[in-house]
């Protein structure tokens, strides 16, 4: 039986409910929170600060260093062992690439902007939630940015093109599934994160991303609203 109706009743291009906030971690220089369904990410920015180890310093520009970490109880199955894994290191690296294009760090030679992301619970789409939270945190830190970065997984489940797959869809057994995490720069539509696993035709990849355009705009609007709300609040207090 083909997948014609999403198991949770969503429309094909509909994301799960989203909550976004800025300024959630007082110790940090900037912070963001992004929850989509039961996938939840906290991001904190520390810096620009001096890069350690020193040999990694770049005298021409500041560097971005993302660290993605799942809390040990945040996985769908067994406890996730603390400490870096191949998976978390790879995700940290693709996060750098997803976010760096919108940042202007020329004014910070030899410095690093650290972004730490922690996830208390996940239900698929965790790298996209991490990127969306991190983009809010970078803006909250007051760093010079060309635009937001909005991320969500797109894909196909047994022939149906969908946005924001949850765990149940990702693990769909009765047909082919393609899971395609994507991050875009909303104003230009440029893609800064693209991964895929599963089985899919070229046309479907392009169409799935095209079909998700309103969802990316929706996420970017929520991210910007979170920043605005934070500074409207800060203004009221003064």
């Amino acid at each position: 039986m083909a997948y014609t109706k999403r198991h949770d009743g969503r429309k094909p291009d509909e994301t799960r409910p989203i909550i976004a906030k800025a300024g959630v971690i007082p110790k940090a220089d900037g912070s963001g929170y992004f929850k989509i369904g039961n996938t939840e990410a906290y991001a904190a920015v520390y810096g620009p600060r001096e890069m350690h180890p020193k040999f990694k310093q770049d005298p021409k520009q500041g560097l971005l260093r993302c660290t993605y970490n799942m809390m040990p109880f945040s996985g769908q199955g067994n406890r996730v062992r603390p400490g870096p894994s191949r998976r978390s290191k790879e995700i940290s690296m693709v996060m750098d690439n997803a976010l760096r294009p919108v940042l202007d760090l020329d004014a910070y030679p030899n410095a690093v902007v650290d972004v730490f992301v922690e996830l208390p619970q996940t239900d698929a789409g965790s790298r996209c939630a991490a990127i969306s939270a991190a983009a809010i945190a970078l803006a909250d830190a007051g760093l010079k940015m060309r635009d937001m970065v909005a991320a969500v997984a797109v894909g196909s489940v047994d022939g149906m093109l969908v946005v924001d797959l949850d765990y149940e869809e990702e693990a769909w057994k009765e047909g082919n599934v393609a899971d395609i995490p994507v991050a875009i720069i909303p104003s230009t539509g440029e893609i800064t994160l693209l991964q895929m696993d599963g089985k899919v035709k070229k046309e479907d990849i392009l169409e799935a991303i095209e079909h998700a355009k309103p969802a990316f705009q929706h996420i970017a609007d929520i991210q910007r609203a979170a920043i605005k709300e934070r500074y409207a609040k800060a203004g009221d207090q003064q």
Partner: protein
Amino acid sequence: MNDALKEHINLALKKGLRLDGRKLDEFRPIAIRTGVSSTAEGSAEITCGETQIIVGVKMDIGKPYSDRPDSGTLMVNAELRPISNPKFETGPPSIEAIEVSRVIDRTIRESKTIDEKSLCVTPGEKVWMVNVDICPLNHDGNLIDLGGIAALAALKTARMLKLDENGQVDYHEHTKEGLKLSEMPIPVTIVKIGENLLIDPTDNEMRVADARLTVGVLEDGSICALQKGGPTPLSLEEIGRMIDLATVTAKKLRKIVETAK
């Protein structure tokens, strides 16, 4: 930097003041929310001043220790990740993280809060392993007390998992049954700064503290764990006063843990 901070905090204390305006024996307001992580068997988030911690309980089936074949296992771990404070770094657990883990572990273990025999599935072969992970999101002091209290709230609300016909854990099916908890050991940390004894220290107060004592207090007022920290020695008289202060404070904290659902 700590010298200037220390002088500043001590000057204020001479006037009976703390930098955030609290009295010496005043706790910051605490809020506990449970069920914050859908992937954990039990979870709680505690906020107290600017300290915010998420605790999750995860269970698994494993082999018991050979010297205790009919007992399940408990493990408490604190992840002091760099998201929560600029002084934390990535890498293996710091000594601070290890101490937080071990002191909370000790209060829960020594009070026999969890009936480890009730975690036995098949003696010598299969027992439940209970993992408690304490993850600060923002660290502004007093991680042992707040992590310990949140751990109790998370344990209290944890639900057991179903085992399928092969004896494997089904992480998507919880039963209505909870863990059998007999005690609520409350850890209370007292810090000594100059001649003053303070409860619920902030990050800055922890940094300048001369000594500290964490006391695990049980419901009947008896004590299940102690840990002295900091470079300065304590007199027996001071230790007595610190335990008294911890006992009084634990009574108030116990009410908060009891109302957490």
